[in-house]
Structure formats: structure tokens, C-alpha cells
């Protein structure tokens, strides 16, 4: 439990050895990661991306009745406006009420940098509690306080007594990690350190009932329910349609599903220990909290890729079913679902078959989507995971097997993507939001690897994905026209060079 007792979590760069630069073949990445050469790779040219603070905010902003204090100069956390509108959309789609999220910045000034920002933070915590009456206050510590040595954890621990709200610190200074995915750990670390994970007597249940020897039925019922309750761990990249689809499949196994941690409240989080299995939907997302819950409460967990694409869904569902001795049921469900999905996909196949795709985005998702599209007959010409860490090893051993000769590049970088697009002229690109404008400027159609608009997980997700892909292969006039009339910033000779020539060992 050592790590969990620290004020700050270790960043993935240290905890898992994570990397942001690589170019090679599908069969090389895993080797390079295991051999240790991956971590030493770097670039001699970098472009803007994101930081772990912005992803931490993304998760924290979904928590019910929370206030977020960003301890930093006023620029960090600007993306809260974007997140706020996303969360409003997410809440609406989940049928939750009004979005009460507020966020504040300590707006550190020069004097705070020189004298420390601790006093100011303390005051802002109390002010926030008084003025907004949130259930929970997250204090998010960015780069500046970390560099000048503000003791945020000490403030948070001592202020807990002075305010009505619960208080949690998220340590996520951007400069400390090369990979944005460290944010998952930062956020979970905050929940683990500062919030309660067990139901409270006389608030959540009446202990007298359970102590009553004549009330054996209730205890048995409780045990029965818990034995078939699973926790499903979501993320912002998973939308309510995804959750619904996955819940549908788990319910078909007669399981009772609780969804954590996004869109949870402080009160709901107390029931996180009331389950018999924790289920992740992404290898690089939840290991930090799942291992904790296993250590602390003895709840086993499943981390098995993403339930995306027939093959992966089957692997995923079977693994879960295994815990409940329901493999046969799971096989039956998958057989049935695959059959009706195949039938439904038929009309789209001739449009997508043989089309050349470049794919980039979250490390696990992009690999699972590549597997899915390959199986349907598409030609994957490059896979570009945004980062790599050891937790993705499972999926990338599949990649090594299924795509041994396909180029794989660990990259978030626009200049590399644009070079590839100009060189290889794919028929379509699957990418993360933020890239599509640039792809259109190269004249190529593209679709999101995830969005809030439709399901991506499960069988419904595969259908929606393929339908959307085929749709976007029709009429590329917009991108074509745009590309003819927009100038990109690169010198001509960049396009003659190898797209990944700025990666160095």
C-alpha cells in the first residue's frame, strides 16, 4: 500500500515506464518496451499537446455537486469551460439534474510565487465552502505551486476540519509527466486518499437490522446481492450510450451493475466497496484504483482490453463471466449478438473493404479499433497510439500478432501526421478530436475514435462505428476544397523526409 499512502502518486513515467516517442513495426513496439529502449526515445521537435492537469480536471468536473479550485496562475485549467459544457451534455444524456459545478483559480501573482501561495489557497478553500456550499471541493495543484513547494496536502488535510464540504487534493503538475494518462492515477489517488469508500452506518444502512439475529433473511439477501454486483469503471471517453450498451450485456449475465467513478457523487462513492468484481473498460485507465480496491477490500478485478469490436468484446465478456461461472451464457450471448451484427453490417462492407486507414488516439482504443476494422477487411496503414505504458502490453501483444508489419508510431504530433497524410493519402483517418481540422486541411475525410454522439462499445458500438465510417467515405468535397485553399506551415522539404525523422534515441 506504500504508493497509496504518499501525498502524491508516482507519475506513470516512473510507476509504469511510459513513453511518448516511438516509430517501428507492430511487432517491435512491445519488444522495445520490454527491452527498455522505449523510455529513452524522444523528439528533437515537439508541438503543443495537453497535460495531466487538463485530464484530471476532466474527471473531477464530472463529480456531482463539486467545486474545483485550481491552484495556479490563471492560465492552467482554462479548459474548464469546455469541460463544463461537456459535463452539462453528459448529465443531460444521463438524465441527471442541473450542472452545479463551479471552478475557481487562485490566480497566483508574482508575490505568491515569491512568498508561496498557501495562505491564499487556504482562504479560497474556506470562501468556496461558504459561498457555494458544494459537497466536495477538489484542490488541483498545477506546476507553479509544485515548483515553489507549496504544501498543498498539508493545507487540504488541515482545512478539512474547518469546512463543511469534503476536501480532496489532486496533484497533477503538467511538467512531471510526459504522458497525459498519469492523470487517471492522480485523480484516483485523490479519491483514495481523501474520500470514503465504505457505507456509513446510520447514513447508508441501519446496523441494528443486521445485528438482529431474527433478521437473517436480510443478511442473506445482502450477501446475495453483493455477490452479483459489479462495478463498471467509466471515463469521459465513454459516453452514456456506451454505458447503456455494456450494462445491457452485463445484465444479460444477470449481473447488477454500478457505474464509477465519473458522474458519481460523494455519497455514491461510499458504495464502491459493495461489489464482488471491479471491471475496467480500458487497460491504461483504472489499474491504480482497481489494485487498491483489491488490496483493501479483496475485490478482484478484470482488466481485459476494451469491449470494442467483436473479438475484443468476446474476450472481455468471457473473462467477466468466468468469475461467475457463466462462460456458457456469455458464449451464447456473443454468438447471438455477432450473428445479428454481421447481418446488419453487410450493406456497409463493400464501401469500407480495402479502404486504407490511418488510425491515431488513446493507446488501447486505437489498437482495438484497428483490430476491429482489420477484421472487416480494411487496410490499416499506420497505428498511432498517443502514449505507451506497460499496462497496454496485453493489447499490444495482440497488435504484434495481428499487425506484425504495420507501422506503429507513438505520437500526438500534428507535423508527423500531416507528413504521413500527404505521403500515403489514406482513404480515411480515425483520430482524436483536435486533429480533424488539420486532417481536413490535408483533404482527407476523418472520423472520431470516440465522441459523445453515438455508442462505440459493444455490438451497438461496432454497428454505429461502421455505419458512420461508411457515411464519411461519401462525398469528400468539404475537405478536398479546403485543402486546395489553405496553406500549412511546413517547408516543402518536410514532405520529402521520413514522417518520424525527428524521433531520436
Amino acid at each position, binding site marked *: 500500500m506504500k504508493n497509496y499512502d504518499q501525498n502524491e502518486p508516482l507519475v506513470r513515467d516512473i510507476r509504469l515506464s511510459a513513453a511518448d516517442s516511438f516509430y517501428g513495426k507492430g511487432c517491435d513496439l512491445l519488444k522495445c518496451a520490454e527491452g527498455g529502449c522505449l523510455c529513452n526515445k524522444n523528439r528533437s521537435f515537439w*508541438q503543443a*499537446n495537453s497535460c495531466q492537469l*487538463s485530464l484530471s480536471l476532466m474527471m473531477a468536473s464530472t463529480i456531482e455537486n463539486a467545486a474545483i479550485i485550481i491552484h495556479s496562475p490563471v492560465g492552467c485549467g*482554462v479548459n474548464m*469551460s*469546455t469541460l463544463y459544457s461537456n459535463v452539462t451534455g453528459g448529465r443531460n444524456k444521463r438524465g441527471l439534474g442541473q450542472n452545479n459545478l*463551479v471552478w*475557481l483559480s487562485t490566480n497566483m501573482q508574482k508575490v505568491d510565487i515569491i512568498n508561496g501561495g498557501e495562505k491564499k489557497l487556504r482562504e479560497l478553500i474556506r470562501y468556496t465552502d461558504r459561498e457555494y456550499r458544494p459537497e466536495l471541493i477538489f484542490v488541483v495543484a498545477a506546476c507553479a505551486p509544485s515548483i515553489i513547494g507549496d504544501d498543498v496536502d498539508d493545507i487540504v488535510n488541515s482545512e478539512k476540519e474547518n469546512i463543511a464540504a469534503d476536501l480532496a487534493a489532486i496533484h497533477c503538475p503538467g511538467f512531471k509527466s510526459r504522458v497525459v494518462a498519469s492523470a487517471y492515477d492522480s485523480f484516483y489517488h485523490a479519491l483514495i486518499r481523501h474520500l470514503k469508500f465504505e457505507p456509513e452506518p446510520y447514513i447508508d444502512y441501519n446496523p441494528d437490522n443486521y445485528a438482529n439475529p431474527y433478521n437473517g433473511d436480510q443478511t442473506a439477501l445482502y450477501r446475495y446481492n453483493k455477490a452479483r454486483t459489479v462495478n463498471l469503471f467509466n471515463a469521459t471517453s465513454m459516453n452514456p450510450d456506451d454505458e447503456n450498451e455494456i450494462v445491457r450485456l452485463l445484465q444479460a449475465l444477470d449481473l447488477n451493475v454500478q457505474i464509477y467513478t465519473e458522474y458519481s457523487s460523494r455519497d455514491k462513492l461510499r458504495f464502491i466497496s459493495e461489489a464482488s468484481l471491479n471491471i475496467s473498460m480500458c487497460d491504461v485507465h483504472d489499474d491504480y484504483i482497481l489494485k487498491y480496491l483489491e488490496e483493501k477490500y479483496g475485490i478482484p478485478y478484470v482488466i481485459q482490453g476494451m469491449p470494442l469490436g467483436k473479438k475484443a468484446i468476446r474476450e472481455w465478456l468471457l473473462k467477466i463471466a468466468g468469475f461467475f461461472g457463466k462462460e456458457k451464457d456469455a458464449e451464447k450471448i456473443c454468438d447471438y449478438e455477432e450473428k445479428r451484427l454481421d447481418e446488419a453490417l453487410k450493406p456497409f462492407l463493400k464501401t469500407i473493404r480495402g479502404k486504407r486507414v490511418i488510425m491515431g488516439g488513446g493507446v488501447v482504443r486505437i489498437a482495438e479499433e484497428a483490430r476491429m476494422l482489420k477484421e472487416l477487411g480494411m487496410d490499416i496503414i499506420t497505428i498511432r497510439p498517443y502514449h505507451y505504458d506497460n499496462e497496454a502490453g496485453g493489447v499490444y501483444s495482440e497488435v504484434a500478432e495481428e499487425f506484425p508489419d504495420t507501422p506503429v508510431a507513438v505520437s500526438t504530433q500534428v507535423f508527423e501526421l500531416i507528413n504521413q497524410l500527404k505521403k500515403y493519402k489514406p482513404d480515411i483517418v480515425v483520430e482524436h478530436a483536435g486533429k480533424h481540422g488539420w486532417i481536413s486541411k490535408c483533404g482527407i475525410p476523418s472520423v472520431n475514435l470516440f465522441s459523445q454522439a453515438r455508442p462505440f462499445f459493444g455490438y451497438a458500438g461496432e454497428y454505429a462505428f461502421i455505419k458512420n465510417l461508411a457515411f464519411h467515405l461519401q462525398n469528400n468535397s468539404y475537405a478536398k476544397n479546403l485543402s486546395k485553399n489553405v496553406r500549412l506551415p511546413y517547408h516543402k522539404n518536410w514532405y520529402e523526409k521520413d514522417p518520424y525523422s525527428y524521433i531520436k534515441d
Partner: protein
Amino acid sequence: MSSCIERPRTTCSLGGALSTISALPGVIPISHTTSGCAGNLSGTTAFNSGYCGSNYCSGQSVPVSNFNESNVVFGGAGRLREELISTFELIDGKLYIVLTGCMSEIIADDVQGVVSEFQNEGKPLIYVNTPSFEGDAFEGYELVLDKIINDQLPVSSRKDKSIINVFGIVPQFDPFFRGDLGEIKRILERLGLRVNTLFTNDQTYKNLTDVPKAGLNILLSPVYGVDLLKKFEKRHGTPFITEDLPVGAIQTEAFIRHVAKALDIDSATVNRVIKEEKRDYYAYLERAADLISDSEFKYYADVVGNATGTLSYARFLRDELGFVVENSVITDFLPKKKEKILKGYLEGKDIPGNLSFETDTYQVTKLLKNAMGQPNGDFYIDLHTPRFVFGSTFEKDYAVKNALPYLAISYPVYDRTILSKGYAGFRGGLQLMEDILCVLVAGR
């Protein structure tokens, strides 16, 4: 409370500097920070400015030194040098500017040393200190222009009275910057002037280097650019006048007359231009009158925005639409010095409604609520409705909750898109009127 801000409507100076540079043709930023700072800032300002979006070498294309933990400990000069070598290899620009952020500033990295190595090789490279803890986005705008104009551009011996520079409108943080500047330019050109706006799509790098030749600078903000233009005057000898951002026919006519006076433009031209513009303007209003008058489109109004635009919008609503403006709320986070400049400027000025300075969204909402009043159970109660809220998208929640018509006019704007549209000048006034009417008839 101290300098803390709830839901800030600004960013650090790095954010403003990145926005400004993205709008300067041929200028390439290099952010000496983590890759997150530049990405978060430019991604969000592009979102918050009516989806202004990214262009040439902005947004996710901004070169960054990708400052990391070892740079914090050992310094980032080496990494910056490497990034600059690659940037010159890869990116086609006329002028390259290194910007700093909190980490490079706190550890006092030797940016100047690295930059001068490249300057010695004749590379068009400069740097601007944009520490995130000194000054906000609007300051970033001034810092960048100050460095280019008052430090780099040579003094021009030949001044041309017909060349005018327009300052004070900050890209993205004034979300209508392109449309507003375009209209101001159109009007000034009608008076026979040549205009450097720097930020409209017609501008080239030459407009930037021509700036010292101008005979007059027009500052369209009471605060942003004052220091810049004082220094400009000292260095290049070009005087400046401060004008309110003109919104609609009444204000624009006054604007034209002020400029004409400052430049001695003959009154025949001035009168002709004003007459023609007004004829066009009021021909639209003439017909719109059926809708406006029949529907009794008259409202109490709250206007929330920055120091540059708020009062101009409020006056337009009061003077041209006959709205009763109750609140003019200025939301800027102003350092002492700028606060003094603004308050000095506003002294004796015509101010519609109650003027407040408030940075926090929740407190702004309280001001608006108080002005409207609340039902208290009495049978007769003078609620100040119908009411129209003009603000940023942050005011939308309040408007929606109270079922009030609302239009986003100030940063951040993310519930509508803004391309070529502006609210300045004659055409801008018509646009604004059109958008207000659109809100009011949308439910039909």
C-alpha cells in the same frame, strides 16, 4: 477576494500572447513551456471565442520546448536550442517568437542567451517574457506587440498621414475581433485612409513592418494598449487617440468625426460618407420597425463583458433600441495600474445603468438578479422584466434558468459560432440588431 477568480474569463499572459501571434500573419510562436500549456491555452481560446479555431501554426501546431521535470532541475536552455533548430528547419515564417511560461520563468532559464545565438546567425528570432503570474491574456497581447513594435521595428523617418494603425482589440478575447476590425477598416478606407489592423485576413507581414510609418494610431480600448501606444509615440513619434469601440450608427458617426478631426479630413468627404452609410443603415431599420414595434421589443438589459466593449454595447442598446440598461458589468481582472487608467478614462463618461467591476460569475449573477427583483408573493410586484441578458456564455445558465432571452457578446462565447461577424461600425450595429431579433423570433 484577493486575486482569486471564480470562472476566469481570461488566461495567463502566455494565452493572450499565443492568441495574438496566431492572428499576426507570418509570425511563429515557440512556447518555452510544457506541451500542455500551449495546447490547453490555444485549444481553449479557440473554443471560447465562438469557435475561432486554429490556423497556420497555432493550436496543436505550436512548437513547444516540452519542458519536463529534468528541465526544471537542470534548466531548459538545451531543449529550447534543439527545438529552435528544428523549428527553423520545419516551419516557414517571417518572424519567430519564443514565449515563456511559469516554469521557465520561475527557474529563470537563460532564454536570452539561447535566442541571441540564433540572432547572431541572422535568424529572425526574438523572445517575449510572458510569465503566467504577471499579467493576464490582455497583457500578453500588449507584451507581444510592444516587443515587436517598440523594440524590434526600426524607426521610420517617413511618416504617411494617410496610414492609420488600429489597436486595442485583442484576438479571440474580443471574440468579434476579425469582423470588428474589418468594419473599422472599411469605414476608415472610405475616408481615404490606409489601415493596418494586423489581425484581419487581408493583412500580410508587411502591414506589421509598416506600422511605424503611420501618421496616427487609433486605440479602441480604454485600457488595453495605452502603455503600448505611449511607448510607440515616444519611439516612433506617432500620436494616438483613444476611441470607444463604435457600435451602431450613432457611435460610428461620432467616431468618424473624431478621426476626421484628428487627421484634418475635409468635411465634405466626411459628411458624404456618413450620409451614405446612414442611408443604408436606416433603410434596414425602416423595415425592421414593423417587427420591433409591433412586438414591443423593448427590454430591460444587463450587459456583461470586458472593458473594451461593454459600455459601447450598452449605449447601443439604450440609444438605438430604446432598451433600459440596468447593469453594465466589466469583468476584467485588472492590475492596479490598469484599474487606474480605466477609472480615469471613465470619469465623467456617459455610462448606461449601474456600472460594476466584478470578475466572478456567481457575483455577476447576483447583480443581475438584484436588478430584476424576485417575486415575493405579493399580488402586484414590479419585476424588471421583460429582460434581455447580454454577456458571455457563462451568463447563459442564469438566463436559461430565468427564461430570459440572452445573447453571447463577450468572452467566453461557446454557444454560438463567430466567423466574419462583428458588432462594430454601421454594419456591425445591423448585425447586432439582427442577432437580437433572431433570438426573439427563434421560438416562433
